[in-house]
């Protein structure tokens, strides 16, 4: 019995010694040491402490969201009446804005996705593929190219070098056909209407809203454009996955990341005027599901 007590005491002392040198998570959060807290969130066990770090990051981020359908007048003003009526007959163009505070971390990424409540309607970021749907233009397929970068050609080259060039007249370097994605110039040539829309609506742009300058804290305002199927009755869900990064002074050049994914209901397109109006809404104010958390260090 006495031996067991001794073993227990020794274990307690050992654990206490191990924990004594580590900073307290509550202190890290209270003092906004988020780089350290993000790495701690990955390393520590215990969902409660992790959730505490995540909630603090979310609270200090103060993420605002705004969703609005780009009105016909605005589309006409940007691309002209003919293209505007053609596009708006097929799809809705939607502007989504995300804003956060600046945090003392090394990166804050946002991943926006939108899902319809059923499979009857979909939404996707503005791009060549989606604008092909909007304009009715044919999206160019992959282009054929001939590549001579093959292992066999490398070995043939070695042979030429090894024979001091004597085998060159008898060596037949053969090309290999590869398929590559079309260039931007090809897209623009074959999809002029989509190109005009992309020029008028920059698909994604970010600004520091007057906070640029010290190059340290992360957090900005980003505006992205989506193409929505015209479906007035579909209720949409917006998923915002925010990734908080800490890389400064992290050992071995690694980066600690925390991803916090929030799903919020934004309703049908006709409700956005009421839900959002001219003001951005706090993410937490919108009806949503519990956030999903992820932690990495790599």
């Amino acid at each position: 019995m006495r031996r067991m007590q001794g073993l227990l005491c020794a274990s307690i002392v050992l654990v206490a010694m191990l924990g004594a040198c580590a900073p307290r998570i509550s202190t890290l959060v209270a003092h906004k040491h988020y780089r350290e807290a993000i790495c701690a969130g990955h390393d520590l066990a215990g969902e409660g402490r992790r959730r505490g770090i995540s909630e603090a990051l979310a609270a200090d981020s103060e993420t605002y969201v705004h969703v609005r359908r780009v009105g016909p007048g605005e589309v006409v003003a940007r691309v002209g009446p003919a293209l505007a009526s053609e596009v708006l007959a097929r799809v809705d163009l939607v502007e989504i804005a995300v804003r956060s505070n600046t945090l003392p971390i090394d990166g804050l990424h946002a991943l926006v996705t939108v899902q319809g409540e059923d499979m009857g309607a979909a939404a996707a970021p503005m791009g060549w593929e989606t604008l092909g749907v909007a304009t009715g233009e044919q999206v160019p397929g992959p282009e054929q190219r001939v590549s001579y970068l093959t292992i066999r050609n490398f070995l043939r080259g070695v042979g030429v070098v090894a024979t001091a060039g004597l085998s060159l007249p008898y060596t037949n370097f053969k090309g290999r056909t590869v398929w590559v994605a079309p260039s931007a110039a090809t897209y623009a040539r074959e999809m002029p209407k989509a190109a005009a829309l992309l020029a008028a609506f920059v698909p994604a742009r970010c600004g520091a809203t007057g906070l640029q300058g010290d190059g340290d804290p992360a957090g900005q305002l980003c505006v992205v454009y989506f193409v929505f199927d015209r479906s007035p009755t579909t209720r949409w869900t917006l998923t915002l996955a925010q990734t908080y990064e800490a890389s400064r002074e992290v050992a071995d050049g690694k980066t600690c990341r925390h991803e916090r994914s929030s799903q919020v209901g934004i309703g049908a397109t006709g409700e956005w005027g009421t839900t959002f109006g001219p003001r951005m809404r706090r993410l937490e104010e919108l009806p949503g599901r519990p956030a999903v958390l992820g932690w990495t260090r790599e």
Partner: protein
Amino acid sequence: MLRPGLLAIVVAGTSGTSLAQAPVASQEAVMASEGPVGPSVPPPRRVVEVGESPVYYRQRRDTLGWGYRIGLGASLSLASTLARPRSRFTLDVLPEFDVGFARGSRFGALFEGGYSYTTGGTHLLVVGGGPALRRFGPKFGLGPSGSMTAALLGHAVVGSMAGKTATGARASVLLHMWLIGVEVGYQYVQAGAQRGHELRLMLDLGVLAEIGR
């Protein structure tokens, strides 16, 4: 009909505004675009750290390690009530567990337990531990920390010696460098009325690796 899609945007970073995975015709055009004009929103707040941040969890997770060592050597009899040779071959097979007191700290503890054999019919279970100086000395390009470990260990031993149940104690000084090491130890064993005092000189082969990075 559209297919569902997603859009990744880099809201910010130390390198300034940039985009990632944005399916756009010309990223340069986006980078050069003017700032967004959006709906009204309270001005963003700059969250600043209170005081200097500790750098603990950003360090390597080197507080726990594991390994093993196989020791080959000689047990020199200092005094014994048994008739036995002055020097006997001895073998240890000892899994090890390494605990650092803090990340980045060289101070910690080493624990080990396993089997020890000495010619003449001595079979012992060995369990022990003690303070250790960890990951110091030359790196040999094997990692960011040193390749040497030194430890002062106390052990309890129990088993059989010359056919009798034996108990005793062992004190060892270890010095390991990468895969090889040396141990100098003293062992006292009692088996019935028999007593043995031994000096152990061992050459070790083994590894000690971190658990988790």
